[in-house]
């Protein structure tokens, strides 16, 4: 079994790491405090091809596949969950669904500029009455000649206010529900009837924008149906398979950063005449953190391997997201404890990482939803 990765991926990891340390790290404190979107960095990332990593070169991407994308997500996750979230929503939930389900015209018109980072993407599913119960969405799309008229409200949409292109999940046939009654549309910013509402003020990932999107008789051409009419759910589920894996990679990165900070602190903080590392209690905390991170990382890269080898990976992707996000939660909590008072003060990064980490168990499907997905997949295998 060969676990090594080829040299281009080693170089990619080194490059993204350096970028994250030199370009992202210096801005995160102000970004978090002011809740400002890091426009400059996103532009730099676009220029370097980071906004379309897994997308094929034919469509403006960098052709690194899922492996390169997850490596980059892990390295960015070490430094800033906000940048990781912005990247994830754009790449996994907007670029990849268009690459998987788009017509050639849609790929030319939308995927190429999105993959190059010339345009930013978003994915609008969640509504006030439809979170985990995604099938309960109420935004409608009614056929009218060559167009569909979209009406409804989406909430908590990452990149929602700045996105140039949004994939919107709508109900086209209420009677059919999730199986045949949901359709995905590609909607351009500036389309009459499409506006941005509230921008949320959040606990963490404050550099990423989380917006309400309002559709009031919004006219969208029929050419903008993504995938088949009525087959919107599969667009969303396949997009999430990829998104969950990249998110998990980001969690692994974030957890690793917490561990590294904890080790550094424990070896330098002297109490009772010795570094706190000398206490078994601390050593056991470090050992548990490191063990869980190792496990989460192996899971992620194994699931990447499944995808790259065209094997089913829905169950594994949900397992990775579930486990890695929960590991991140445990690790950051322990990291705060190891740092003691320093872990609670805003002038040190641990406090921000604690706030940033919490959403990982919620977005792109809560831990509870992941467990349902996993159980369902297992049932299908067995029955």
């Amino acid at each position, binding site marked *: 079994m060969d676990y090594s990765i080829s*040299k281009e991926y080693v*170089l990619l990891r080194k490059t993204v790491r350096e970028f994250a340390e030199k370009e992202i790290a210096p801005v995160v404190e102000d970004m978090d405090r002011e809740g400002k979107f890091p426009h400059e960095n996103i532009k730099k990332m676009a220029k370097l091809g980071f906004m379309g990593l897994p997308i094929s070169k034919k469509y403006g991407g960098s052709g690194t596949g899922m492996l390169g994308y997850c490596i980059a997500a892990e390295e960015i996750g070490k430094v800033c969950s906000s940048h990781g979230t912005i990247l994830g929503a754009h790449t996994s939930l907007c670029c990849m669904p268009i690459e998987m389900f788009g017509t050639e015209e849609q790929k030319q018109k939308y995927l190429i500029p999105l993959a190059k980072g010339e345009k930013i993407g978003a994915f609008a599913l969640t509504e006030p009455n439809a979170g985990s119960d995604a099938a309960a969405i109420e935004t409608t799309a009614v056929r009218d000649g060559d167009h569909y008229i979209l009406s409804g409200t989406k909430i908590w949409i990452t990149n929602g206010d700045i996105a140039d292109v949004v994939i919107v999940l709508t109900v086209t046939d209420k009677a059919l529900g999730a199986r045949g009654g949901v359709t995905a549309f590609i909607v351009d910013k500036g389309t009459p009837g499409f506006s941005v509402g509230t921008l949320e003020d959040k606990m963490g990932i404050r550099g990423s924008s989380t917006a309400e999107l309002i559709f009031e008789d919004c006219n969208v051409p029929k050419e903008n149906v993504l995938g088949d009419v009525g087959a919107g759910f599969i667009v969303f589920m396949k997009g999430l398979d990829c998104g969950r894996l990249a998110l998990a990679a980001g969690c692994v990165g974030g957890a690793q950063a917490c561990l590294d900070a904890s080790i550094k602190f424990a070896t330098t903080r002297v109490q009772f005449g010795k570094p706190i590392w000398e206490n078994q209690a601390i050593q056991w905390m470090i050992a548990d953190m490191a063990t869980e991170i190792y496990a989460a990382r192996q899971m992620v890269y194994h699931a990447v391997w499944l995808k790259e080898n065209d094997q089913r990976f829905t169950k594994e992707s949900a397992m990775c997201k579930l486990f890695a996000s929960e590991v991140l939660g445990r690790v950051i909590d322990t990291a705060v404890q190891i740092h003691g008072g320093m872990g609670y003060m805003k002038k040190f990064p641990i406090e921000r990482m604690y706030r940033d980490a919490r959403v990982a168990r919620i977005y792109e499907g809560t831990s509870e939803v992941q467990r349902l997905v996993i159980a369902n997949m297992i049932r299908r295998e067995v029955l």
Partner: protein
Amino acid sequence: MKFIVCIKQVPDTTNVKIDKRTGRLIREGIPSIINPEDKNALEVALRLKEEFGGEVIVISMGPPQADEALREAIAIGADRAILLTDRAFAGADTMATAYSLGSAIKKIGKYDLVLCGRQAIDGDTAQVGPQLAEFLSIPQITYVLEVNIEDNKIIAIQELEDKRVKWEADLPALLTVTAEANKPRYPSAYGIMSAYKEKEVEIWKMKDLDVDEKRIGMDGSPTSVKRIFSPEPKGKGEIIKDEPKKAAEILFNRLRAKNIL
């Protein structure tokens, strides 16, 4: 225009540790990187290419693993990469290195500008660039901070310890570039994939060059490294505190006693 950039793969000495027992560098597990100032040199070449058009060729003399440094340079934006690798080149000091590189550059043919980093972080000699210019019989401007090309001449600002000097030279010429000259661009993700999946690094061996065997490798090296060590820490110095005239007298007597004055 044709720009030739010489790069060297070096151990990342900023992260290197010293073995406390032997005082020597711990080389195991140290990642290899492109010498930092060579990246500044490459950045100058890429910006000139963007402004004036042409081709950027990177060349390196090293063991086979220096291929990685050249591929990174391609990923950053170089058009062509040449690796001079041969047992015969091994053990070269700066003179033999410059001679070998010079022979390779002569083989490339017509060029406009050769660019080198000011110095490598492992050797720290800053000799190869100037020696190379002599082998190629071209003018050299070292410690370059800013560069421009006008009327087929190179105009460069040289940064010395106490002043900056503006130089002008006919092309072809050689520049050595400092870290302060620019902020090198990162390799792009698509550049990295292309460097490994689509591009080639040309391998040149001794037999591919027109060289005098006695002037390359260890045989061609008038200098050799006797020992690398971490100097003993000197310990805290002494500060002589007194009013100036008295302190000067004390200092003078101390230095006298040590036969320094």
